[in-house]
């Protein structure tokens, strides 16, 4: 215990004596969350749509009004003729064009069957899908209105009445911010420990320490302890930004979240230790820690893409990523108010035990 404390005290002194690194460790996660949180939020609210109205009747103006009444769609200047569409897309003036053909209102009045063309910029696939959804939803709304006017009924024969639970307005931040907590924590924690160990390897102090009777496990525990505090501070700040800046609800319990978050921090620090057993220098450790955590967490954990829609092999890999489980827990807690995660708990504890054991084992081996 004395030895662990000696290592922890020394590590704390390193941290406090280097205020610039400390500032980076605390400010970087905050900046990332604010940037990502806003970037993803803004993108979906300002979808630009242009109209090419060849009909020029009250009915066609009504259609335009109805579409642009949505919060998410921002109309841009109308296009005078078809030849301008392609160049507009090329210059990025709009994401989609709604073409109302000549005779739109006449067909609508006589046959209740009047086609409207929608052109979408497919270069950015995910935005294209969102634009498509918004425009279709707007047109469905108009259809219901027209049907009720024509047939005097409020409803169509079959009507899907969707009610979205847990994040009813599909506010992207509510989905994204918990993911950012998972991403930023694993990155910063892995980075901190891998650098801390690689630095001692570089300066030879690690070897000096290991000629003393201190055990590798004691070195590791002592080194990790102060960083748990930094990880916890980071987590608290990110969650506070999520809660108060992005209004992410907390339907579960902060205590349960704190418990799981500390577990996740310890696993992430262990990941940094593991990386440091492969890295010879601080630079290598830094790059490995960032690449080794950023990409898998971003792509394979379910942060951006649902794991259930992944090919078999990738789905298996995603099961080895701690963020996969932490994400389910934090989303479940904050959005759904779920409090008990037996499967995820077992998975996280198992992953953590394996990662730390391998790290300690390799740490010993590397001395030879």
């Amino acid at each position, binding site marked *: 215990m*004395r*030895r662990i*404390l*000696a*290592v922890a*005290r*020394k590590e704390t*002194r*390193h941290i406090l*004596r*280097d205020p610039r690194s400390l500032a980076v460790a605390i400010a970087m996660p905050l900046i990332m969350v604010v940037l990502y949180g806003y970037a993803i939020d803004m993108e979906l609210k300002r979808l630009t749509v242009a109209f090419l109205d060849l009909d020029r009747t009250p009915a066609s103006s009504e259609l335009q009004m109805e579409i642009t009444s949505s919060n998410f769609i921002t109309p841009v200047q109308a296009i005078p003729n078809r030849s301008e569409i392609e160049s507009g897309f090329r210059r990025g003036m709009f994401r989609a064009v709604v073409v109302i053909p000549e005779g739109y209102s006449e067909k609508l009045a006589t046959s209740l069957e009047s086609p409207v063309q929608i052109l979408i910029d497919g270069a950015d696939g995910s935005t294209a899908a969102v634009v498509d959804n918004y425009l279709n939803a707007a047109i469905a709304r108009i259809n219901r209105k027209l049907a009720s006017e024509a047939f005097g009924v409020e409803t169509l024969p079959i009507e899907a009445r969707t009610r979205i639970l847990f994040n009813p307005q599909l506010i992207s931040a509510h989905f994204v911010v918990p993911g950012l907590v998972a991403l930023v924590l694993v990155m910063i924690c892995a980075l901190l420990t891998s650098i801390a160990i690689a630095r001692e390897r570089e*300066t*030879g*102090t690690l*070897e*000096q*320490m*290991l*000629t*003393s*009777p*201190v055990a590798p496990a004691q070195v590791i525990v002592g080194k990790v302890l102060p960083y748990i505090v930094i990880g916890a501070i980071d987590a608290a700040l990110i969650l506070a930004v999520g809660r108060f800046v992005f209004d992410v609800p907390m339907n579960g319990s902060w205590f349960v979240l704190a418990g799981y978050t500390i577990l996740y921090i310890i696993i992430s620090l262990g990941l940094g230790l593991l990386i440091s057993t492969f890295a010879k220098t601080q630079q290598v450790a830094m790059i490995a820690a960032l690449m080794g955590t950023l990409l898998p967490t971003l792509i394979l954990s379910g942060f951006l893409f649902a794991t259930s829609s992944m090919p078999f092999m990738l789905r298996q890999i995603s099961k080895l990523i701690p963020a996969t489980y932490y994400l389910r827990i934090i989303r479940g807690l904050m959005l759904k108010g779920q409090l008990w995660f037996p499967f995820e708990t077992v998975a996280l504890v198992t992953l953590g035990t394996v990662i730390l054991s391998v790290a300690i084992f390799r740490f010993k081996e590397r*001395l*030879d």
Partner: protein
Amino acid sequence: MTLNHSHSSNLAVVAKDLTRCFGNFTAVDNLQLEVSRGEIFGFLGANGAGKTTAIRMFCGLLKPTSGEAWVDGLPISRDSEKIKRRIGYMSQRFSLYDDLLIEENANFFGGVYGLSKKEIELRIAEQFERLGLTKQKRTLTSELPLGFKQRLALACAMMHRPRLLFLDEPTGGVDPIARREFWDLIYETAEDGATVFVTTHYMDEAEYCSRVSIMKDGKIVALGVPAELKRKHGTQTMEDLFLKLVGVSGESGESVE
């Protein structure tokens, strides 16, 4: 020679057929060695001769490929943890934390040796006084001149009163006066009853040792009291002896890697 009884004998370090290979390269080749308690033993050789590899095995940082060694009577293959409590090790890089105060460095190494707070304070007071570090106690280590860093490294290696001290090129890069002063400290340490096992490539320092060995390509090519060795090989100085046996001079040997 009854090595099996070495633990009860008066030997601080014994090596028998000690060998360490790195891939195809044999760094230490069937090393045979006996160092008595209280000796200042000079472990000489050009760089790459295998000195550091041998010391790292004695200190428990490396496992031998074959053979065995006993440190303070304990076999390194089995008792490296016990050995670590009894030895002090000072590496050629003075591995200290530059961003800690002098006192904090000593404090830390006292802590990893499991000393109590009281013992640590006592040892710091004692040693800093002896090594002339008391005034600089609250100085940042990075601001110390090299000669003082070297003394601090010695203080850190001796926090737990080791019976055996391994010094790997302790005087590298330090000016002649500081080297002379450091050797006075080594003498004092030996007079207090500790065994000092020291490597150096300064041949004037080799003259200060009670016995020396000269290593070449992982093997010991000469072993004995400096004066006797010089007489036997008919050389005037240790420098000449070294040149004759190893083929490079001690100091230029530094560039042989």
